């Protein structure tokens, strides 16, 4: 059976992986657990970057804190690992200061919807030109499996030792209601669809919100006897229903229940900077100094 073993030197393993070109290879190995889905989302993101046709020197990625928050550090882009919950405000400043950049926020459900929830709402309301990727693993991974605003009612978390009695956020509904122009949800089983959504998000102008459901086998799955990462991906496969254009009110999640996935929202609305420029041009006329030339020189 020894011929089945891969005997290539370690450095050669996976060197043909198309994602490598987008990663800081001197930062590998990453910190994520075996069976964790964050790496799968990063693979999808790398594919989306390649397919987007964007000049990667002009793409910046901003993360908050947590397991997904480490993503920025692994991408070979201008990358910013900020404070807990504040990736969106940092990204807002970065984008407005340098409008030629495509700015991506890549963080977890706790970072974006708990401590950073206020910023998520307001960036969507303003239609700030950002793509937000929210990897939702239903828990706080880095701190050891505490209840999150996304934890479905029922499962046990370290700070809900008798089962979660709170109700979770329906994140696509939240983003939709606040004004996001593109809202999608996929799971790490749906790698092609997730990569396509990310590519569309990179090419879309305005506030884009993509939720990626992802297993946390070490904490969420093990504590709730849901098996390993593969078991969770099987669950995503078996219980997901693709419903593009679904009413986001109807896509809330329950513990191990059905999962509605798809592209829910794709609409047009002026971005914050477009609105600012057109408004000031109208009310201030010749005295207005327009802002946001593509060369980055205001």
């Amino acid at each position: 059976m020894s011929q089945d073993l891969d005997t290539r030197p370690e450095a050669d393993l996976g060197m043909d992986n198309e994602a490598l070109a987008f990663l800081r290879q001197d930062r590998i190995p990453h910190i994520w657990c075996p069976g964790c889905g964050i790496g799968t989302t990063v693979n999808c993101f790398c594919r989306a970057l390649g397919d987007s046709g964007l000049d990667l020197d002009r793409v910046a990625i901003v993360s908050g804190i947590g397991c997904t928050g480490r993503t920025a550090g692994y991408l070979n882009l201008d990358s910013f690992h900020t404070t807990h919950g504040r990736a969106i405000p940092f990204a807002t400043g970065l984008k407005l200061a340098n409008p030629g950049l495509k700015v991506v926020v890549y963080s977890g459900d706790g970072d974006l919807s708990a401590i950073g929830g206020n910023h998520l709402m307001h960036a969507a309301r303003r239609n700030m030109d950002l793509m937000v990727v929210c990897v939702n693993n239903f828990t706080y991974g880095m701190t050891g499996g505490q209840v999150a605003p996304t934890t479905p009612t029922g499962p046990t978390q370290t700070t809900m030792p008798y089962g979660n009695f709170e109700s979770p956020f329906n994140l696509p509904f939240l983003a939709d209601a606040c004004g996001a122009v593109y809202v999608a949800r996929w799971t790490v089983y749906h790698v092609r669809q997730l990569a396509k959504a990310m590519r569309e998000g990179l090419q879309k102008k305005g506030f884009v919100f993509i939720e990626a459901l992802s297993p946390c086998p070490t904490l969420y799955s093990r504590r709730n006897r849901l098996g390993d990462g593969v078991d969770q991906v099987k669950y995503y496969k078996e219980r997901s229903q693709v419903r593009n254009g679904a009413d986001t009110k109807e896509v809330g999640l329950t513990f191990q229940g059905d999962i509605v996935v798809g592209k829910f929202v794709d609409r047009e609305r002026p971005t914050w900077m477009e609105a600012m420029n057109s408004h000031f041009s109208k009310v201030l006329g010749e005295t207005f100094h327009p802002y946001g030339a593509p060369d980055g020189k205001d």
Partner: protein
Amino acid sequence: MEGCRIAGRPGLTEDTLQADPRGVLTGVHFIDGDHAVCEGALAAGCRFVAGYPITPSTEIVERFAARIPQVGGIFIQMEDELAASMAIQGAAWGGRKVMNVTSGPGLSLMMEHLGYAFMTETPCVWVDVQRGGPSTGLPTAPAQADMMQIRWGSHGDFEVIALAPHSPQECFDLTVRAFNLAEAWRVPVFLMLDEVVGHMTERVDIPAAEVIEVVERKWTRKRPGEYKVYGTTPEDPVPEMIKAGDGYRVHVTGLTHDEKGYPDLTPGAQARLGRRLVDKIRTHADRLVDIREDGVEGADVVVVSFGITSRVAHAAIEAARARGAKVGSARLVIAWPFPAARMREIARTAKAIIVPELNLGQMVLEVERAVAGATRVIGLPHAGGTVHEVETILDAILEASR
């Protein structure tokens, strides 16, 4: 222009430019301190402000919001101070000169991002128009009670530079200087107003753009590949900077990091980074001294004051001199880093140092620490809400002179 002159860093002269005339409202104005801060920021080249309304600082962002569309730049009112204090840092890495503006409760919310700015060496100016506290306190009345908060309020070891204007003219001058210091040293630089200075209206002379010295960001001339985002030398502890989008593909993190900006969570990295960051200021503190002295040599009593309190102290000092007291004044224009060496010199000759301040004892602790018992240090605490009565300071001077 004397008031704008920066405290020098080696090799800085080539990066010193004239102000962009687009932002300079040259002329004689009759405006309050808050408005003067706004004009100072525009003159210094600030083109991005993120704010959140809070009394008594709001006039600064109101004026900036009205002025910036004609100058070219961005004002955005964020959803809270946490967001404002982070948005400016994104904008700094996007290439702009940036400022945020707040008062007590907002400052408390911003504390985590004070640490982030220090850790990531993000040039930025923070304006705190101090009001009575703690908590909501006295929103419309003065205090000088945030002096220790900006020095120690974020977790971990850090250093800031803090300037304390005592007039609308100084609000303009020192705001320009705050931006220059932020670019020169890449630390958060504070402008510590109080409600009275913020709302006091006086003559403000704004000079022609060509006489306002503006320090340009220390842009690297290295190419991608040879540039390290936190590369420094023993001679120059301030790293060169880039902006996102220039092809350098940098990584910036609030984690303990190495020269490449990569996380390095070892005790060795913590010692190297922590030391370099604090020593950047501590070992150059002698370049960051600005004390305006009057009659200190040969004085029996020296009044050490800052901000609005220095103007009350001035009246008391004049009155005491009229009664024959030998009293000097040392006004701290740069409050942090604290000019400990000069305080020790003053303590060698003065019989007493009096420290009036609008708090219940903050900078007096620094004076006590610096002079280490070499002379008598008399604190004159005042809880805020008003300034001191002149007589309170006068009585203390006369008492100490005996």
